[in-house]
């Protein structure tokens, strides 16, 4: 039998088209089909749900396919190309570049377009919609010269757009035809509470008004809005329409496929259109006549379509339309039968006008089942309530406790059934989450995300995922052990606080008061690091010397044969020829292997412990100081050459890198810290691969945090944009101290960020907005560090007591340890290991057997 490969064309590369391709690859559809994806936008699919964060993170961070192609070579992606027609008889589509593409199967995933009502003036300059990255780019551009703007439409998306406009510095009005905001999702009382919140953010809300005209000024640009039955026009210089969406079903209409009455391509339960070679999925489709303006139903449709193409039985029978608003500062959620449309449904309402909280539960008339609800001002219970609706589980005795402030508000103590869908974006049930935890595939949120996709889209289910993990561990008696080791019943953070509160200065004091035993290789270095962060005493001081980890104990890095490496600090990677010569001379005179490190400095290897003081004597005399390559502390702040020399540079990146490296040198932290500063967006210093990265902009600096290279690389994310040098340092002081205070032992900034409820937004609230009022305190702590810094190596060579530790043998200080030996490779030394201890003398006798 001849196997002829078939061709499948996907029209539209948006969220759902992309999900379709992923599922097709994963489930083996590409074994029989070559897939051609035709997308009209200039770039591959991106996370439209997170569109607003484009202003912060840029286009690349939103992209689902930053490389521009799928790993499976049988999938070809054409971006910037539109499908202009379908010829069903010839089974081919025409493209706007003139090409014709034949298909055996066609999947329409053309999404939806914003609806722009035909108000006179809707086609003026400075009138926008809010759907694509290009739309946002244009809005940002216009906002630069705009003073006031209006968003027409007070629904979910309108509010999001309004908030974005507001954050761009435009005085923002929300204009809504309906008598309240989010009319589709919430009721009047909830709407009033929401309006108060939105106004507190600094926006102006106009409900129940109809826009009649968008008027232009002399320059042909928007100038004001005129409303029906209102004399006063509203002066604005830009307008964003967010008045709903319409399915993009024109291709289907033009070739005679059946469409739904209110728009959308009619499909059956397997996503087949009236032509059974053509499927439609996502926002352009209308299963059973209804279109769905959310991504989760679109994803289900994509999975069902792949299944159908593989001959499977999957069907799509409707979807949960629950929503949670991502507006910063205002929690709004609406789920299930929010309007009590079910026969006999009862409503339980809790409202606190002062606190701005409105919560409503809709329950069945026997009071046994939760049907839906609305939460405004505090939506913390959403994660638990929504799955309760979906699973139809029986309500607890006093359902009102689920929304009363006295309870934890998150429905603690309610046990969800296994089938309860926890992540609606990715259709993951409680059972699936618990299963990956139970069989050891994951033991934290990050692990569950990796195994199941739960929590990777809108993130609203993350708190529940976290609780499920903890509950599971509790149920099998595994303490969610955050205690640092057997000697302390405390986490690192708690230990940090205990030390700060009591002002302890030694390990003995701490273990006597709060621990047991004599400590170990885990808690001792942790205590040493905490003491160093708080008091910045010398690491080889009386109180702390015996606590230090291998490298700190000798202020150098232990190598495989017991010798050490020496890394002098070269701030920002800038070094004079004289200093370079000194390093060369020292290396030559002590016979050390010399290498340029990955951190823009020079490492000298093969020093014997007893040689370290003499080596450092020479280096310190030449003006070098410790590079802390051995410490869990600041390593380097890498720089690019920057505006001083580079023809692209917009700021002095070397100067800034040096300033930051000198400021934070010696800062002891839960894990090592690295920084980078680039002089422009070309990013030659790879700053976004660092715990803190600074990238120059025309106006100042962008500050990125929580990146790293290493085992699990992570890109740093934007914490603050376009700040001046002083603000940059203030934010960095706060950020670093907050990390040092709250991270676990050996937790780098990126994993620390993953562990924080609320993630980067939370960190920004604390660092930038100073929401906890901690700012001044964190800055003062950093100032104390900066003020008390001394070079550890200089202090060591000046102190006989510390120097006394650097001997090979207590009883024979002049004899080198024969176990350390070298051979030569490429003109330099390299370690030689022996499989037995090397002895210089006779054997030590063996004593009589002990009884």
């Amino acid at each position: 039998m001849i196997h002829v490969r078939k061709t499948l064309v996907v029209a539209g590369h948006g969220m759902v088209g992309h999900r379709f391709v992923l599922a097709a690859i994963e489930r083996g559809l590409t074994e029989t089909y070559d897939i051609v994806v035709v997308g009209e936008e200039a770039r591959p699919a991106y996370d439209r749900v997170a569109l607003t964060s484009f202003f912060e993170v840029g286009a690349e961070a939103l992209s689902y396919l930053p490389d521009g192609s799928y790993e499976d070579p049988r999938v070809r992606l054409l971006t910037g190309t539109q499908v202009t027609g379908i010829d069903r008889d010839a089974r081919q589509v025409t493209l706007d570049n003139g090409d014709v593409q034949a298909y055996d199967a066609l999947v329409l995933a053309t999404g939806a377009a914003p609806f722009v009502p035909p108000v006179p003036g809707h086609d003026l300059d400075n009138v926008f919609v809010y759907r694509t990255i290009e739309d946002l780019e244009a809005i940002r551009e216009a906002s630069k010269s705009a003073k006031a703007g209006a968003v027409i439409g007070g629904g979910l998306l309108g509010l999001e757009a309004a908030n974005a406009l507001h954050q761009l510095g435009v005085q923002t009005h929300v204009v809504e035809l309906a008598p309240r905001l989010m009319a589709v999702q919430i009721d009047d009382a909830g709407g009033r509470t929401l309006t108060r919140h939105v106004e507190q953010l600094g926006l102006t809300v106009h409900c129940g008004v109809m826009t009649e005209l968008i008027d232009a000024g002399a320059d042909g640009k928007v100038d004001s809005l005129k409303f029906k039955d209102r004399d006063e026009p509203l002066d604005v210089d830009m307008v964003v329409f967010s008045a709903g969406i319409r399915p993009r079903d024109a291709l289907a209409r033009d070739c005679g496929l059946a469409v739904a009455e209110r728009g959308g391509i009619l499909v059956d339960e397997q996503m087949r259109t009236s032509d059974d070679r053509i499927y439609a999925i996502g926002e352009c489709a209308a299963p059973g006549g209804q279109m769905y303006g959310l991504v989760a139903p679109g994803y289900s449709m994509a999975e069902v379509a792949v299944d159908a193409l593989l001959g499977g039985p999957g069907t799509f029978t409707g979807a949960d339309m629950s929503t949670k608003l991502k507006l910063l500062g205002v929690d709004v959620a609406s789920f299930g039968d929010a309007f009590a449309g079910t026969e006999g449904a009862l409503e339980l309402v809790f409202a606190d006008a002062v606190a701005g909280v409105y919560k409503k539960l809709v329950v069945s008339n026997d009071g046994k089942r939760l049907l839906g609800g609305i939460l405004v001002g505090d939506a913390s219970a959403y994660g638990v309530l929504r799955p309760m609706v979906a699973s139809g589980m029986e309500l607890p005795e006093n359902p009102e406790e689920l929304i009363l402030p006295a309870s934890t508000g998150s429905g603690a103590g309610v046990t969800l059934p296994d089938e309860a869908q926890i992540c609606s974006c990715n259709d993951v049930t409680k059972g699936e989450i618990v299963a990956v935890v139970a069989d050891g595939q994951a033991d934290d949120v990050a692990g569950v995300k990796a195994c199941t996709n739960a929590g990777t889209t809108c993130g609203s289910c993350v708190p529940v995922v976290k609780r499920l993990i903890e509950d599971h561990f509790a149920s099998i008696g595994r303490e969610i052990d955050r205690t640092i080791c057997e000697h302390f019943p405390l986490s690192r953070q708690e230990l940090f606080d205990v030390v700060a509160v009591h002002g302890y200065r030694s390990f003995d004091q701490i273990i006597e008061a709060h621990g047991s035993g004599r400590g170990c290789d885990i808690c001792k270095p942790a205590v040493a690091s905490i003491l160093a962060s708080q008091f910045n005493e010398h690491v080889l001081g009386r109180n702390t010397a015996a606590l230090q980890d291998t490298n700190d104990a000798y202020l150098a890095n232990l190598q495989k044969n017991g010798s050490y490496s020496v890394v002098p600090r070269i701030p920002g990677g800038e070094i004079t020829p004289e200093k370079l010569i000194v390093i060369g001379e020292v290396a030559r005179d002590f016979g050390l292997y010399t290498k340029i490190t990955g951190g823009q400095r020079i490492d000298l290897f093969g020093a014997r412990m007893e040689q370290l003081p003499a080596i450092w004597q020479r280096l310190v005399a030449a003006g070098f100081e410790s590079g802390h390559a051995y410490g869990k502390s600041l390593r380097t702040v890498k720089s690019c050459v920057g505006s001083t020399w580079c023809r692209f540079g917009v700021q002095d990146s070397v100067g800034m890198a040096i300033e930051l490296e000198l400021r934070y040198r010696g800062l002891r932290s839960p894990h090592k810290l690295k920084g980078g500063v680039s002089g422009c967006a070309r990013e030659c210093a790879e700053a976004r691969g660092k715990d803190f990265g600074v990238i120059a902009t025309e106006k100042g600096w962008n500050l990125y945090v929580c990146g790293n290279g290493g085992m699990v690389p992570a890109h740093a994310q934007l914490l603050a944009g376009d700040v001046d040098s002083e603000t940059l340092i203030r934010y960095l002081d706060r950020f670093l101290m907050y990390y040092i205070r709250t991270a676990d032992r050996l937790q780098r900034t990126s994993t620390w960020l993953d562990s924080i409820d609320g993630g980067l937004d939370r960190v920004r609230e604390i660092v930038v907005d100073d929401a906890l009022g901690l700012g001044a305190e964190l800055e003062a702590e950093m100032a104390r560090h900066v003020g008390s810094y001394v070079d550890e190596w200089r202090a060591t060579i000046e102190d006989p007591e510390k120097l006394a530790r650097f001997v090979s043998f207590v009883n024979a200080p002049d004899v080198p340890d024969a176990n350390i030996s070298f051979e030569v490779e490429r003109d330099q030394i390299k370690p030689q290991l022996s499989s037995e201890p090397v002895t210089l003398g006779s054997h030590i006798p063996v004593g009589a057997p002990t009884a």
Partner: protein
Amino acid sequence: MSDWQQICRVDDLERERGVTALVHGQAVAIFRTHDDQVYALGNYDPFAHASVLARGIIGTRGDVPFVASPMHKQAFDLRTGVCLDDDSVSVPAYDVKVVDGTILVGPRKASTLA
């Protein structure tokens, strides 16, 4: 008796920190614990093949005093030299006595011979 070699004064040692001594030509790690007990183990870490144990952190696991190798953190019982993470591996342990404040290292403890 020549089997016992004089090393240094107890007071020369910091508590809970090790030093290396040259005993009959071999590198021996000497440790003074918080309760002033003195222990001696071979300095050679059999996992890392390097002479480094004296530079490890000391502590307790339950009641067992141990040193963690600075190289890859395996723990060795200060009394017997047995590795607490893999009891098929051990380093030699030596008898130690303190006479008039001076540390003497004696023969290898027989119980630690494989």
